[in-house]
């Protein structure tokens, strides 16, 4: 009898969840940010329905603050796996007066994404959104179910989640409610990287070591080369050319870089194994308060 490896187990579990989602909902969508987790999730979706095409579109909630490399990659990847892409635009939510842009030089559109996400869900009548969230990322995420119920306001009620037993997933809901589904719940950052290596999945170049103009702000290394993050006058002389890579790729205003010379997947696996900080340690959005993630998730964040 062949033994099963932990990556096989995780892959099979994720494929099972992806198929459950397609089967239990009328109109699901897969949230695709161009980050490694959503790339792995979309990769697994291709496997789950092969030789058919994906039975749901990819949905990108676009903050307008994207690294150009991430956008190039997104369009290439969508074409490569033969998927359809829907884009929800934060800029449009701002232009329509639905949200107010944060002020100040620490302004981020990360929080605004929630409004755009919920609007896009409602406009398209998506009843389930597949997210690449992992329980090892953050202490509130560690509490979330695979099938996570959202009320008609898109809110999560962490104190009152449905029991989720064995591998039976209950996607029943009332009209107007929806679900967030997390096929990668049980994956760790290391599992993601080992899987990317095993499957030879191409990634945006941002994940690999490169030279970049960087400004250090509150201990975070932020991009100073694209102009997405406005610099204060006194910061301009402090911009440095550094050898960095990104451990997570999201909205450019809150994604910090790490100094790194890791230029191959093997290098990255070794670096992740030795890391003393969580990957979200580079995310400004989590540092706003002790329960920042829980608070955002209650409102309907990813």
């Amino acid at each position: 009898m062949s033994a099963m490896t932990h990556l096989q187990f995780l892959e099979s579990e994720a494929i099972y969840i992806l198929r459950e989602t397609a089967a239990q909902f009328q109109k699901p969508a897969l949230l695709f940010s161009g980050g490694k987790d959503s790339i792995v999730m979309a990769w697994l979706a291709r496997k789950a329905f092969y030789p058919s095409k994906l039975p749901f579109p990819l949905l990108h909630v676009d903050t307008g603050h994207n690294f150009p490399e991430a956008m190039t990659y997104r369009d290439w990847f969508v074409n490569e796996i033969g998927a359809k892409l829907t884009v929800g635009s934060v800029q449009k939510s701002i232009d329509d007066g639905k949200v107010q842009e944060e002020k100040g030089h620490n302004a981020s559109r990360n929080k605004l994404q929630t409004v755009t996400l919920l609007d896009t869900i409602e406009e398209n009548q998506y009843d389930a959104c597949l997210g690449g969230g992992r329980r090892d990322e953050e202490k509130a995420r560690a509490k979330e179910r695979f099938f996570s119920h959202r009320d008609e306001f898109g809110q999560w009620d962490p104190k009152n989640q449905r029991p989720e037993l064995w591998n039976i997933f209950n996607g029943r809901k009332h009209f107007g409610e929806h679900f967030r589904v997390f096929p990668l719940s049980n994956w760790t950052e290391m599992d993601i990287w080992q899987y990317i290596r095993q499957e030879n999945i191409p990634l945006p170049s941002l994940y690999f070591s490169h030279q970049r103009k960087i400004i250090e702000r509150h201990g975070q290394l932020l991009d100073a080369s694209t102009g997405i993050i406005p610099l204060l006058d006194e910061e301009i002389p402090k911009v440095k050319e550094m050898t960095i890579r990104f451990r997570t790729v999201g909205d450019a205003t809150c994604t910090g870089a790490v100094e790194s010379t890791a230029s191959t997947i093997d290098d990255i696996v070794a670096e992740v194994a030795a890391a003393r900080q969580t990957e979200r340690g580079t995310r400004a959005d989590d540092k706003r308060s002790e329960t920042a993630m829980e608070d955002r998730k209650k409102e309907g964040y990813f």
Partner: protein
Amino acid sequence: MDVLVNPTESSLLRFTTAGSVDDGKSTLIGRLLYDSKSIFEDQLLAVEESSKRRGDAHVNLALLTDGLRAEREQGITIDVAYRYFATPKRKFIIADTPGHIQYTRNMVTGASTADLAIILIDARLGVIEQTMRHTYLASLLRIGHVVLAVNKMDLVNFDQAVYDRIVSEYMAFTAGLEYVPQIRPIPISALNGDNVVDHSTQTPWYEGPSLLEYLETVQVKPESVTGAARFPVQWVIRPISDQTDAKLGNLHDYRGFAGRVAGGTFRPGDEVVVHPSAMKSRIVGIHTFSGEEKEAISQLSYSMTLADEIDTSRGGMIVKAEEPIQSAHEFDAMICWFADKKTLKPRGKFHLRHTTNDVRAVVTEVLYKVNISTLEKSQDVLEFGLNDIGCIRIRTSAPIFFDAYSENRITGSFVLVDEQTNNTVAAGMILKPIADAFEEDAEVSI
């Protein structure tokens, strides 16, 4: 910082914590992660800062898993937290569950997928009702291995007599269970780390392994691997395309039954029976994205093609012809009731979810309730309230295809969903179809 395990060799152990409120479950998980160096600096810093803010006397390691605002405010666990760690020997998925009786449903959620349960006891309190409830649930869920962690040994001067008394009391209780797991007692202090990762000098009288040593080496065998071959149909893959696929050829007639093997092994050429029609056919191909497979093994996901045009879809079941499955619409099951605002009574109607099937169901009879402390079956009150456990008879609107839960945790389990709220209100474990259920009935003492 994750230990570099060899992805082609590492084995996975899923375990859960259980025991009464404040017995130290979350502290133990925090300690295990901390002493095995599985905590990141920023996580530890955050926990140190919160502990200081709260005025705790020491770094409160329970804050590593008690991540919700309400949990941190009250110092209790409300919902399961999943944590992950690895040593060079093994990868672990931990479910840290709440001890409070009100949140039993969350304990069952964490325990339903575990191979092993660590049941904690506060050495000062010994075996209490919640210890028995969680032990009973672990046994009902057929968790094959239990670590009896006698905790807070620091508060009883690491007294061997206290430990021995608790262990024998626990063993006496478990001897009365229908299914007795393998039990490994260990004296620990989660707070100080005694016998958690390293052997303690405080317990020279204890010669067994530390908790981590035991977790790294215990052999668990998922029974479904060796059991009868089961494949619940999850989704039918029909490309509706005239394209030619490099691996599968022309796709025009491709019809693959997609699912995850729920027991045993299938191979191309196997004679199978396909439910609901119970028609016989033969497996032609077993596919994944990587191509044609020689076999389909338990727990992995595949797509299968059959030799005949057979009508089955989601909710259907493919089994080996020589290993038939039960097909019935009336059966007896043990259930655990989760709803606080509603009770379960005869004539109650639900949606029943079993494998990939969703049917309507009615409770035709409440057979008995179990008294957790005495393990006695009682028929005094035939109504289930929050956290009650017992046996009911159910009829479904269409037959379902199942094994007894004791044979297969996947094809033997179901949940009941409330028709108004859509909440999952009960966990069910099938005993047997109604045909021979009457014998069981006769055994019940009234």
